[in-house]
């Protein structure tokens, strides 16, 4: 279990990993950094899981729907013991288990493959129905991007979750107002988000998704909710704590150069949790 201060520190480690991994390769740093606080809380405080036994049937499940931010997930998984930290360097390389978008078959511990947007909540719903059939009260946490909810399937699955009273589901919308072509409100407005979920029969909670205490409170509240699924509308900042990345659409899918990475790591700051990734050349 990790307290607020510890989760913040772990989130910092995830952000540093994301910068290091994407700058050595390609990938999507912005959204991953923006969601680092949420993922840190999940993997180091919230989920009942067993990294050494990823198939444990009664585990809580984390379904990453916006698969492109997988560097944050890979970091959390490696740092919590699913696979060796050095393996992070294989990200996006030939024969790697760490595919550019998550591949469940390749990497035990991933609940689903993801990438094509809008599918995660449907899969989470199926897992929730399975838990119910099995008599398990394990939770399902599903993370979606805000642009992602432009996909019609998200609303199909939102109906399904409410209709079947899947109160063990928490859907976290990482609302950074950025998608590839610009600000979400300009590309295709999705607001008001909470009102939409309310109208679909969901419990809703609105938080600052980069404030760990607010994330903790939201999950605490979710665990008490009954009768309907919970949507946590988490206002996040793309590239949070890296000044030149914040609120810039370009950082959805652009890898930082070596110079930019150095600057980003300086701005994120040193971290007392774990140690920095060391490149093979530096061994």
């Amino acid at each position: 279990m990790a307290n607020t201060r510890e989760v913040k520190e772990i989130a910092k480690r995830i952000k540093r990993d994301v910068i290091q991994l994407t700058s050595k390769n390609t990938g999507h740093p912005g959204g991953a950094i923006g969601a680092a606080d949420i993922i840190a809380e999940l993997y180091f405080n919230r989920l009942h899981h067993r990294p050494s036994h990823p198939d444990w049937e009664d585990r809580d499940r984390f379904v990453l729907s916006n698969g492109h931010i997988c560097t944050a997930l890979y970091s959390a998984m490696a740092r919590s013991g699913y696979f060796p930290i050095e393996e992070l360097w294989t990200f996006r390389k030939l024969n790697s288990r760490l595919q550019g978008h998550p591949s469940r078959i390749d990497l035990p511990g991933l609940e689903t493959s993801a990438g094509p947007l809008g599918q995660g909540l449907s899969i989470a719903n199926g897992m929730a129905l399975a838990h119910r059939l099995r008599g398990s009260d394990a939770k399902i946490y599903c993370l979606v991007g805000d642009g992602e909810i432009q996909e019609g399937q998200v609303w199909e699955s939102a109906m399904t979750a409410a209709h079947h009273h899947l109160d063990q589901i928490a859907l976290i919308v990482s609302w950074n107002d950025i998608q590839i072509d610009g600000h979400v409100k300009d590309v295709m407005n999705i607001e008001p988000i909470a009102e939409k979920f309310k109208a679909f029969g969901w419990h809703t909670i609105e938080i600052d998704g980069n404030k760990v205490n607010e994330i903790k409170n939201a999950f605490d509240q979710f665990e008490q909710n009954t009768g309907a699924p919970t949507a946590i509308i988490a206002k996040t900042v793309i590239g949070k704590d890296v000044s030149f990345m914040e609120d810039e659409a370009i950082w959805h899918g652009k890898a930082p150069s070596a110079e930019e990475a150095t600057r980003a790591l300086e701005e994120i700051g040193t971290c007392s949790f774990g140690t920095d990734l060391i490149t093979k050349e530096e061994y």
Partner: protein
Amino acid sequence: MTKAKSGRDGFGKALLELGEKNQNVVALCADLAESVRVEAFANKYPERYFQIGISEQDMIGTASGLALSNYIPFATTYAVFAAQRANEQIRLAACYNQANVKIAVSHAGLTCGEDGATHQALEDIASMRVMPEMTVIVPADENEAYEATKASVEWIGPIYLRLGRTPVPIVTNDTSPFQIGKARTLKNGTDVSIFACGIMVERALQAREQLASEGINASVINIHTIKPLDKETIINEVQHTDCVVTAEEHSIIGGLGGAISELLAEEHPVPVHKVGTQDTFGESASPEELLEKYGLTAAKIVTACKEALGQKEQNLKRVRS
């Protein structure tokens, strides 16, 4: 041949029995419970039945989530709404995840009938066959649909089970065990091999009788599993005849005919003539009228066999000269 029920009836009967035998079998439907014959299961096992409403993409994802949690879900709708409407969900959530999802679809092909072209899937075998990890089964009749449904639960991985709406006579010999991926040779022959699936198996048998009356000896092989294709049986068979006709209630592009052409082009090149729809949509009419108009008839198979035999003869002449 006895007058019997449709493929979907065989599916519904098997699903009901599976519900009793296997507590992990669950079913999902997108607002077509009676039509796809899942209603009996829903009534008997309501806790294991999930109505998803008119949202097939969501249904495939939900089914995959159940499969990834060790249940064996049957996701049911019409062929067009699964193979085509939810194509990318089948690709990611079912196939790329290697989720143990059984996609059982009714109203495939022209025999969907009066509903017209919008509802007549004639491209679904092609679009499902190209998916890595996917198994594609097209039962010939009620019996085979029943057997295929039972067998699909023992098979690990996603399956596309293509069922028809219209009753067809029983043509499969239920004493030979059904095995996924193992073709059923219904009649031996020496001149030409007819590979058929679905409702065209019956028509292939009729064509064989017509050909026999004209002194042509055709074999009829029921290729109920389009993928994985039973290469061994097909190649062994073609080594005897060197001449092939395929027959399917589907486009001649990418379906059974496509699969067999791909195989034989590499392994044993011989004339392959394909009976199926000619790169076209269907239309509204009775099933029988449509099969006639679009050339899915025994007569058309007979013609195709003669054409293929003619080509075989020409090829032989070319070799001799």
